[in-house]
C-alpha cells in the first residue's frame, strides 16, 4: 500500500429548490428581513464604463421559460480587472465595483435582468487576451448542480474570433449560443440572451 493522499471530498451539490429566493433574494419571496441586500444592480454612479442592461431568459427542454431560476454574474470592470486579489493584471482596480450580482427571474415572464457595465478585455496570467465576457452561474429547482456558462458580446466580433475559450467549441453554431445581442432601447444599451437547457440550440455549459 502506498502512502494515503488524504484529500477531503467536495460536498455534494443539491438543487437550490423552488424557494431559493427566501435565502438569496428574500424581497422576491415577499418579505423584508435584511438591512442590506444583494441585487442585480452592479453599478454605482461612480462606476466607470459603458452602462448596459443584460436581459435574458432560461428555457427548459420544452421551450418554456424557467420562472423560478436564479442567476449570478461575475465580471471584470471596464479596465478588464477582476476585484479579487488573485488578479494582478495591469488594469486599474475600482474598489466600489465588486463585479458580482444576482437576479431571480420574473415569476410571470421568466425575464432576468442585470444593470452593469460592459467589462473590458481580460489578459490572463499566461498573457492570453480574452474577449470581454461575463461569467454566469445558474441554479433552480430541477438543476442538481449549478450550471456555468459565459456571455460574450455581439459587437466584439474580432475579439470573439480570437478568444481561446470560444475557440475550444468545435461547432461554430454552438459558439453562437454564448453571444448576447446588442441593441438600443429608449437610449439604453441592452444585450439580450437566451439560455437553452436542452434542444438543438442547447447553450454551451462548462465544467470549470
Amino acid at each position, binding site marked *: 500500500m502506498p502512502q494515503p*493522499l488524504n484529500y*477531503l*471530498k467536495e460536498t455534494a451539490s443539491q438543487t437550490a429548490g*423552488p424557494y431559493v429566493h427566501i*435565502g438569496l433574494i428574500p424581497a422576491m419571496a415577499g418579505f423584508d428581513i435584511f438591512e442590506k441586500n444583494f441585487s442585480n444592480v452592479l453599478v454605482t454612479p461612480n462606476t466607470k464604463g459603458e452602462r448596459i442592461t443584460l436581459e435574458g431568459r432560461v428555457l427548459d*427542454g420544452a421551450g418554456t421559460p424557467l420562472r423560478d431560476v436564479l442567476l449570478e454574474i461575475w465580471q471584470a470592470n471596464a479596465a478588464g480587472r477582476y*476585484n479579487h486579489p488573485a488578479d494582478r493584471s495591469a488594469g486599474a482596480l475600482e474598489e466600489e465595483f465588486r463585479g458580482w450580482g444576482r437576479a431571480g427571474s420574473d415569476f410571470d415572464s421568466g425575464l432576468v435582468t442585470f444593470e452593469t457595465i460592459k467589462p473590458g478585455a481580460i489578459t490572463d496570467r499566461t498573457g492570453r487576451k480574452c474577449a470581454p465576457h461575463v*461569467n454566469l452561474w445558474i441554479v433552480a429547482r430541477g438543476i*442538481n448542480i449549478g450550471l456555468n456558462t*459565459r456571455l460574450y458580446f455581439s459587437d466584439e466580433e474580432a475579439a470573439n474570433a480570437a478568444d481561446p475559450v470560444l475557440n475550444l467549441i468545435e461547432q461554430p453554431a454552438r459558439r453562437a449560443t454564448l453571444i448576447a445581442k446588442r441593441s438600443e432601447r429608449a437610449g439604453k444599451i441592452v444585450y439580450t440572451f437566451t439560455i437553452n437547457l436542452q434542444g438543438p440550440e442547447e447553450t454551451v455549459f462548462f465544467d470549470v
Partner: protein
Amino acid sequence: MNAQAPALRDPRLNRPEPFTPPLGDGGFFQRDRSIHPPAHAPGYKSSVLRSPRQALLSLENSISEITGPVFGHNDLGPLDNDLIRNYAKDGDPVGERIIVHGRVLDETGRGVPNTLVEFWQANAGGRYRHKKDTYVAPIDPNFGGCGRALTDDTGYYYFRTVKPGPYPWRNYVNSWRPAHIHFSVFGSGFAQRLITQMYFEGDPLIPVCPILTTIPDKDALDRLVAPLDLNASTPFDSLAYRFDIVLRGQRSTYFENRTAGN
C-alpha cells in the same frame, strides 16, 4: 444510510490528517462529478426538462474562474446569523431551538476564511415564508427562515435557528422532503460556488427522498447529514448540529512554466 441505528457520529473521527501544500492561486482541483447528482436524474422529475444533454465543455481554469466576489462584515447586519431573532415580531418562533455550526474547508483540509455562507429553511411546521408556498401548515409570524454568516479566519461559522419540519412536494403523490436547511457557499473563486442541503441525523425520510437519492455515492450522501453535537449545545436552551462543508481545493503554482497548447 442506516436509518435504524443512527450512531452518534463525529465527522472528524474518520478524517485523516489533511495534506496541506502551500496555498496557491492556480486552478481548482478537477471536480469529481461522480459524487455529485447527475444533471438528469429521472427520479427527481423536475430535472428531466432542466438538464443539459450535451457534454459539458471542460475549461482549464482561467482568471475568470479562479477569482470570485469578496464579501465583508459590511455586507451583513448584526442579526443575520440569528434566525430566532432576525424576524421576531412579538416573541420567539415556534420549534426546537438549535445551533448549527461547522467549518468551510477545502479539499486539502484548509479552512476557507471570510467566505459568505447563506442559509434558508422552512419553519418548524415545514412551511416556507414564500409567496409560492401553499402548504397547509401555517406561517410563523416570528420566523423569516433565512440568514447568513461570514466564516472566521479558520473557516468556522455558526448560526441559531429552529429545526425545520419535513414537508410534502409534488414529485410522486406522496413525496416528502426530510427536514433540511439549504446552504449557499462561495469560496475564494467562482468555480468553487456551491449550493447544497444539510439534513439531520436519524431522519427516517432521508433514505426515501427523491432529491437526496439523486446522489450516486453513499459516502457523499452521508456527508450531507449533520450529526447531533451535544458538546456544542447550550444546556436548557438549544441543541447543536455540526455541518462541515468542503469546497474544491486549489492547486499551488510551484514553477511558472507555460503549459503547451492555448
